[in-house]
């Protein structure tokens, strides 16, 4: 059924290709400008415009996903030349399997976060909607661009919007976290530019495919410079991907951000991971004298350290938003650690894991907002109470309300029915726990199982000691995540007696329900999605098809285009 639907959609959008590739950037950009013109006064129009733009972006992303997913050996790669200059002189946008997948997950999370924001958060400050659109535009652009400098530009657009969105709602915690966040990211951007400059100095070009073509011809005495440039780029991108030891900015910033903003911020770390994945596989093909790529072990070790640090910090945290931020970190670490092995099957599992963990952590950020609001209302505690934590393993000694029977010997307790709002929150929380801890039956388990099966060598291949280390760390981190999240669940959902029932607006439940439905979808469609991600990973690790598709694209001749003389120079 999925296959026929995909084919139908791919046929339907065929006349629009390749122009559809630029739509995920143009739609939010135009929408942001229009929303700015509408102004804060006309709230209804603002919300409608914002939602419509995001819904269209989602539709375009799904259409692109269907377009690139055609079964067969040669991948379908859509290449768009926005200024109609020949490759490698102009800007190039490329949608391949990986880009389309990232666009789709971005759009899903963004739509849900936006709907959630409409309920309350949009009123916490000005210009939420234009900034949100620009944020999505930056993320989409970073996924689509096929040259290094535009990657820098789109990442900067994304970060600049995120600086403003982080401050949405204001308050001391946000401003302080925002200051650190901006400073760290400005330094990382400086390193990014240094890396880009060095690669340009060596290869003389900035198009990713063009660089990939030219790098094998680089003389050995220049390879050191290439590695230095790649390492600088790597540091900058890994800082954005939140990999230890470059991730100390993450927890304060993400836990201070407003809930829908934090949910979208989960995607920012994925942009960092995407850029590392794309550039590492394109630029650093294995040399003749070795089978591994430059820096593979470093990636594995940094990823492992990230997971360990995130797990240990989780044990000491009680605040749900902090836990969600740490879960972001843990998923980033897992992805980078697994990336280092450079195996297509493993990478396919990791991309599937990326989908599940992104949805789960985004849901957890939205849930944390509702849970804490209910708690504030019930106990009069402030939302920041959890930040000054009492000992992590002590459960709250709640004063027992009169009329509550704690003695088993006495008359049976007639349980109060769980209010439906609380049941909803609890169930959504359980889904998040299952996904983050990687327990059956949801996508988190399928993804982790796929990765572990490859790592322990189900096909008889021996496992390296680093491979075993990853296996152990993945399993133990799942255990820690399970323990910590269950502890938090008990504390929030079971322990309180006679608490106030949270009042949830339907519009707040919709996005959470949508994200949970998304989780169920990717679980049910696990087979086709794994096939898709594995195909994406195969073509990433052997980028010749990507390079040829980009290099082979010719500009469309205009009606009055003068013929370009071979020597150039005169016109």
């Amino acid at each position, binding site marked *: 059924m999925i296959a026929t639907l995909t084919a139908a959609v791919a046929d339907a959008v065929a006349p629009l290709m390749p122009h559809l590739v630029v739509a995920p950037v143009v739609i939010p950009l135009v929408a942001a400008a229009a929303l700015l013109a509408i102004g804060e006064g006309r709230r209804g129009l603002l919300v409608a415009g914002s939602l419509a733009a995001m819904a269209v972006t989602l539709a375009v992303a799904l259409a692109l996903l269907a377009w690139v997913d055609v079964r067969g050996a040669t991948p379908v790669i859509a290449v768009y030349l926005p200024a109609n200059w020949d490759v490698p002189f102009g800007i190039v946008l490329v949608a391949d399997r990986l880009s389309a997948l990232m666009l789709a997950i971005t759009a899903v999370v963004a739509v849900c976060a936006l709907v959630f924001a409409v309920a309350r958060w949009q009123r916490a400050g000005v210009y939420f909607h234009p900034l949100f659109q620009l944020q999505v535009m930056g993320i989409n652009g970073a996924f689509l661009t096929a040259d290094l400098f535009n990657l820098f*530009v789109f990442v900067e657009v994304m970060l*600049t919007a995120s600086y403003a969105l982080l401050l949405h709602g204001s308050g*001391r915690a946000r401003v*302080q976290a925002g200051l650190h966040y*901006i400073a760290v990211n400005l330094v990382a951007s400086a390193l990014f*530019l240094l890396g880009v*400059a060095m690669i340009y100095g060596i290869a003389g070009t900035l198009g990713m495919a063009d660089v990939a073509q030219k790098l094998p011809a680089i003389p050995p005495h220049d390879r050191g410079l290439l590695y230095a440039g790649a390492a600088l780029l790597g540091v900058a991108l890994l800082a954005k991907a939140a990999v230890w030891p470059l991730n100390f900015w993450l927890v304060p910033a993400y836990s201070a951000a407003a809930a829908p903003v934090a949910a979208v911020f989960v995607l920012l770390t994925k942009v960092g991971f995407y850029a590392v994945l794309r550039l590492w596989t394109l630029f650093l093909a294995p040399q003749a004298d070795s089978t591994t790529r430059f820096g593979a072990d470093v990636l594995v070790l940094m990823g492992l350290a990230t997971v360990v640090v995130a797990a240990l910090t989780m044990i000491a945290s009680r605040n749900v938003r902090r836990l969600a931020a740490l879960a972001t970190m843990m998923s980033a670490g897992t992805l980078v650690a697994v990336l280092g092995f450079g195996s297509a099957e493993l990478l396919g599992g990791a991309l599937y894991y990326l989908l599940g963990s992104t949805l789960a952590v985004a849901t957890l950020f939205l849930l944390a907002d509702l849970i804490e609001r209910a708690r504030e209302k019930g106990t009069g505690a402030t939302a920041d109470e959890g930040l000054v934590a009492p000992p992590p393993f002590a459960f709250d000694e709640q004063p027992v309300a009169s009329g509550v029977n704690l003695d088993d010997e006495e008359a049976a307790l007639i349980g109060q029915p769980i209010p439906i709002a609380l049941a909803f929150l609890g169930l959504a929380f359980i889904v998040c726990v299952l996904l983050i801890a990687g327990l059956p039956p949801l996508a988190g388990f399928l993804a982790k199982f796929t990765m572990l099966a490859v790592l322990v060598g189900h096909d008889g291949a021996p496992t390296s000691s680093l491979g075993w280390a990853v296996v152990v760390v993945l399993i133990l981190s799942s255990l820690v995540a399970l323990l910590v999240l269950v502890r938090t669940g008990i504390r929030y959902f079971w322990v309180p007696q006679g608490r106030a029932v949270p009042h949830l607006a339907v519009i707040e439940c919709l996005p959470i329900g949508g994200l949970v439905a998304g989780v169920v979808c990717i679980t049910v469609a696990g087979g086709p999605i794994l096939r898709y991600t594995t195909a994406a990973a195969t073509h990433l690790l052997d980028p010749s098809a990507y390079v040829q598709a980009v290099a082979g694209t010719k500009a469309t001749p205009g009606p009055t285009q003068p013929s370009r003389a071979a020597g150039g*120079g005169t016109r």
Partner: protein
Amino acid sequence: MEIVLSAAIGILGASGIWLVLRARTFQVLMGLSLVSYAVNLFLFSMGSLSIGQEPIVTPGIPADLAHYTDPMVQALVLTAIVIGFATTALFLVVLLALRGLADNDHVDGKDEGA
């Protein structure tokens, strides 16, 4: 010329890093600016360093880097300057907001030992 330019990049970068590691927000801001100057100069130097050569092709002179300076890096530097300028201005706003909320100019919003 190479020595002068690399010394300028090195000194700007070193001063910038030193200032970024300071505890006062305004020093951090100045440090970030200096670092971005150093990066821009570095980016500029990645084209060909030459004196008196134009980046724009003129008729009669062969279009190669022996006769022109690289226009690419100049475009890149221009973009980088614009982006750096915008983000620095944003940082300045956040700096002032934190100064107002925390009543001091420490990066963590608290004055130790004061």
